[in-house]
């Protein structure tokens, strides 16, 4: 994924940065958090502050070779260790390897009496000792505001916090300080006053009963940064942030062509299929064979020995496998050979953007050459359709940059006229647009496919009939009788009568 910031490397070098290793965050910030300075991460309860801080520390220790101290004021060390294990980080192991120190600072207001002057030198000594033991480069204070509840004298506390942040800077620590979101200020106790180098806000919002986490860098002294709100996800492998604003059109156009998996369809598309790295939209009403086409496309990739990723938002994996077996597409085999990965999930599980984050994650991780999304129309609730286009644009951009050929299916209403309207949002993003229809005539339904558009190649303008056989999708040759293109039984009848008219011709099978 390219940087969202269009900056020359020369200006980037101004401020040294410490990579967080968190997918997407380093891109938004142009390389990470300010090295040797404190960063404030604030947000409401349960918005992922601790997770972000912990991941910053763990990835720093493991990937950047920078040991870290995690000083926690709310959670206990055991709780944090358990939580982090759920996303695959073993804090115990890191502590054994001297890459991490966990220190739980706990003060019980009820057991403390205050008389006379004091300072928080004890906290400094504890932190300093922890830093010295492992030679730490990174520090997390989560959530130091808890001290305000524990210590009655806020004047002393404020003075000491100011001294603490200065002290961290002097020691060259790249620090993350978390803070609870306040009513009128960024943090409840105004920590932003002391930590002014970089401020990141996390947010957890419910829109239409679907929760979305968002991240925004509101301040980054001495560095350009992405200013938008970026959706992020706490996934199985930690946080990932999705940079949105890649609206540049600078991907390479590839001349190579890839088969759609249906020979007849390839021939309609200039005889060679679609361009590699292009995007294909398959529209159709229910039961027109969209998924079948999608699977054929993925299966063809596997046959070529390329990896394919299939997002199924309607069927479970085993249901898909069973159904496709009936038309002779053995997906289980490709999965066994690690060429196919099916990701089946309920569309309502996440918001649209969370789905996108998950897609990004999987594409990055699995590195497929071909991606099928079945269907995109299910990804958003009707009223939020307005979000679909920008989200898809991002996805398509991303896939194109990776050189991935993508097929999206889309469910449309049965009426052909409504189609152009319903797809007007996304079709312009697509390079190739196929329309599948079910025609009913003469008491039979006939499946047809037509190419509505296909950029950069000669393509057939015929409506072609196709059937699902036990060995996949078969296009039926165009049968022209007189001035008419015949389909279905009309075609068979015409073929019969023509055959029988040929002298010595065999009887039709």
């Amino acid at each position, binding site marked *: 994924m390219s940087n969202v910031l269009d900056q020359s490397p020369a200006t980037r070098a101004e401020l040294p940065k410490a990579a967080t290793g968190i997918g997407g965050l380093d891109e938004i910030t142009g390389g990470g958090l300010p090295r040797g300075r404190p960063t404030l991460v604030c947000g409401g309860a349960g918005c992922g502050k601790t997770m972000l801080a912990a991941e910053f520390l763990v990835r720093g220790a493991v990937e950047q070779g920078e040991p870290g101290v995690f000083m926690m004021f709310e959670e206990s060390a055991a709780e944090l260790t358990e939580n982090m294990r759920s996303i695959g980080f073993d804090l115990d192991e890191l502590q054994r390897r001297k890459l991490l120190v966990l*220190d739980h*600072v*706990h*003060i019980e207001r009820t*057991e*403390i*009496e*205050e*008389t*006379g*002057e*004091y*300072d*928080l*030198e*004890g*906290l400094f*000594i*504890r932190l*300093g*000792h922890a830093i010295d033991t492992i030679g730490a480069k990174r520090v997390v204070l989560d959530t130091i505001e808890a*001290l305000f509840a524990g*210590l009655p004298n806020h004047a002393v506390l404020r003075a000491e916090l100011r001294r603490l942040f200065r002290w961290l800077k002097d020691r060259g620590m790249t620090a993350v300080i978390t803070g609870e979101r306040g009513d009128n200020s960024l943090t409840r106790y105004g920590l932003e006053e002391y930590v002014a180098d970089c401020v990141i806000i996390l947010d957890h919002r419910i829109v239409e009963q679907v929760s979305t986490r968002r991240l925004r860098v509101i301040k980054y002294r001495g560095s350009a940064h992405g200013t938008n709100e970026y959706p992020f996800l706490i996934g199985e492998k930690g946080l990932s942030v999705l940079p949105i604003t890649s609206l540049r059109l600078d991907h390479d156009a590839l001349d190579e062509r890839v088969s759609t998996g249906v020979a007849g369809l390839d021939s309609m598309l200039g005889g060679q299929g679609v361009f590699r790295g292009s995007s294909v939209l398959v529209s159709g009403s229910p039961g027109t064979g969209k998924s079948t086409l999608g699977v054929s496309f993925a299966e063809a990739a596997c046959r070529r020995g390329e990896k394919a990723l299939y997002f199924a938002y309607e069927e479970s994996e085993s249901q898909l496998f069973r159904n496709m077996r009936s038309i002779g597409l053995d997906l289980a085999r490709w999965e066994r050979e690690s060429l196919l990965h099916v990701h089946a999930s309920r569309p309502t599980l996440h918001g649209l953007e969370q789905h996108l984050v998950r897609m990004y994650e999987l594409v990055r991780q699995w590195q497929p050459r071909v991606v099928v999304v079945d269907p995109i129309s299910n990804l958003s609730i009707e009223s939020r359709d307005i979000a679909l286009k920008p989200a898809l644009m991002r996805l398509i951009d991303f896939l194109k940059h990776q050189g991935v050929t993508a097929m999206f299916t889309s469910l449309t209403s049965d009426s052909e006229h409504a189609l152009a309207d319903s797809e007007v949002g996304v079709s312009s993003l697509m390079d190739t647009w196929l329309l599948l229809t079910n025609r009913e005539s003469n008491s039979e339904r006939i499946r047809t496919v037509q190419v509505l558009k296909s950029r950069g190649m000669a393509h057939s303008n015929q409506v072609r009939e196709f059937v699902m056989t036990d060995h996949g999708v078969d296009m039926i040759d165009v049968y022209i009788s007189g001035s008419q293109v015949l389909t279905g039984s009309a075609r068979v009848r015409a073929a019969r009568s023509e055959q029988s008219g040929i002298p010595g011709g065999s009887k039709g099978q």
Partner: protein
Amino acid sequence: MMSSPVPTFDTLPDAATAVPEWQLKLYVAGQTAKSMAALDNLKRVCETHLAGRYAIEVVDLLVNPRLAAGDQILAVPTLVRKVPEPIRKIIGDLSNEERVLVGLDVRPLKRAA
């Protein structure tokens, strides 16, 4: 004595009881004015109200930084009442005798007895 990492038992009374009734730990960071004042104030309060029944251990965190985590010390000076339980903490230079007595939960009626 201030900088000694070894626990220092200040007072051991009649030797009848090996374990003093009141065991107090004073955490300081170096010999600052605040910590000296705290120790002086503590000694005075103890001599007045707990004479012969107490022991004070002074822990200098500059010498023994790892001890800070054990008793959850943040502020210095901090006085910790280890025995009798439950643990109580008093932060500050202990300049207010009344507050110290409240903090330690010592009834100052001993003198009258």
